[in-house]
């Protein structure tokens, strides 16, 4: 498995982002709306009632910025405002940050209900521990 770290090789627009879930998650394919609802925490449980554990990259990472633009249609500043507004309203907590994409893969492979996104090069198509449910390519969410 590649050990590319985000900070060393930020994904460019041509780099795919793979959205991965735990192998047991009841989702095979997630669209832009579903990803937005998961990563804004307006959706907190999977269809089978399992709590969703979403892992975000830190706001200043290129991976996060590319993902937010594609799924939420927001830039970094807008995302920050969004979470401030949620906080003032007394809303739910944002997803946890995980800086290392390799760790995101590990977490998603071990924690049921987990969902995260990593550079696609980190996840093989035949992975049995995690499932790719969506990809982000050229700023667009596409099928896995």
């Amino acid at each position: 498995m590649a050990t590319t770290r985000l900070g060393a090789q930020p994904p460019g627009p041509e780099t795919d982002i793979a959205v991965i879930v735990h192998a047991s998650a009841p989702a095979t394919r997630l669209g832009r709306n579903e990803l937005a609802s998961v990563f804004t925490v307006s959706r907190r449980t999977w269809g089978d009632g399992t709590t969703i554990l979403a892992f975000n990259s830190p706001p200043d990472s290129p991976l996060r910025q590319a993902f937010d633009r594609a799924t939420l249609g927001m830039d970094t500043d807008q995302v920050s405002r969004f979470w401030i507004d949620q906080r003032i309203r007394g809303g739910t907590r944002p997803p946890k940050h995980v800086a290392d994409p390799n760790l995101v893969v590990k977490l998603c492979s071990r924690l049921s209900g987990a969902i995260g996104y990593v550079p696609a090069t980190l996840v093989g198509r035949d992975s049995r521990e995690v499932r790719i449910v969506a990809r982000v390519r050229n700023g667009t969410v596409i099928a896995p």
Partner: protein
Amino acid sequence: MASVTVNKFDRTSAAYDRTSALQVHCRPDRFRTVGTTLMASAASLFAVWLALQPVPAAADQPTESRAAADPGDDSLPALRQRINELGARVEQQAAELQAQKASTDVTAAVSDGDNGAESALRFYGFADMGLQRMMPRRSSALNGITPSKETTFVLGNINLYMDAQPSRDWGALVELRFTNYPNGAEIGCGPSMGNCRRQNTDVYDTTSASGGWSRVRWGSVVLERAYLEWHRSDLFTVRAGSFLTPFGIWNIDHGTPTLISLMLPQFEVNELFPLRQLGVEVLGNLHRGPWELGYFAYVSNGRTSAEVDFTDDKMLGGRLYAVLHQPFRLAFGLSGLAGRYSDQERMVASLLPYKIRRHELVAYWEQAGGVDFSLDVGALRVRSEFAMRRVAYDQGKRDLNYGQPGVYNPDRLEWDNYWLFAYQLPWAGLEPFVYMEIYRLPTFVSEGVLSPSVGFNVHFTASAQLKTQYSYGKFADLPDITSDRSSSHNYHLIGTRLVLAY
């Protein structure tokens, strides 16, 4: 008890005698210790004896070891098997090590979510402070309730949130506002009343190390909300405690950093609905394509004059909403509530027998409803609400209009409508906005008020902004908004606040 010591025995038989002595006068546990020591010594001797013995025959060894150690030709498969087993064991241990490292990494590398620490208890909040100037006309009744007509610095909101989430499904939220009130609060004021008495909370600081004659001004804490929450699923979350009434846009947005304009709509200021309620609330949502559909429903004490409800008629209310998140944000909401207000006093009716009589001073039924609309397209933000409230008093149980003696509130239909347009310019975080509101509230001054307003926000960062707004209040006899009968009460209001969320 005998206290025979070793020294009293023959030195040549000291070991035996020491043991005997210990048996005579020591505690049993000490005897066991000595016995254990002897057994350990014997075991050591046995181990030495074993080590000196010839290597045992292959037949005495376990099967695996025998296979691995057998140098014959037929041992090759066994050796391979052994190597494979060892390899598998190494892989297993490596996996376990990796798992341990991963669990350590989770705590070390999984850090805070956006704008907050992901811990059991989080503290955050917002503050705003700035300048304002209220300018009622010389003949305006507002002079009776406006303490200052000059430009003044003001300490606005200093709010602290305590957000606890001890487990995944359970949480609590407490929001406090710190204020210098009741210092400076005026009692007995009203549009037609005379001298106000101003409260002063200055006291001698008797705990001061400087002698106790310095002065300190004590303030207070406003409990904005405090509730416990249990999350069962997206469709079902329960809150119990004091929560903000889920009515319209403003009461949910709630805080200065989130609201677009600085000044609140009149129906919010005059509490067309109770801003917060004490009771139980359930809420949930679901997603259908790009739409999010949600609800709030609650039962509460409703509007009360105390911290308890004087009647069994609870307030029932709720809110339905639909939000389109993509490709732009569009939201519709429908809110409603109904309840009964009662203010009572108690008095001793007789001492023998002892009887207390409860007397209802004010009582009315109220129903309120509203629809709201919000739209965010690119840099444009549009907000609008229409809300109404019907109040019907019990016979002879009306309350005073703004505390004016002899002036009672009528049965009435209040309503309010506003439109707000804001546009974020591409320069310096500047966001100008225009606002128009019409509010019907029959008072002794007029039937209602028109509030055209303009302002701008400067977004320095996502969490810091400057809000400035000017508003003109024109009292009118609705629906004839052009009437000037009440224009002597009109006013101008300008304010600015530096706002920071933290």
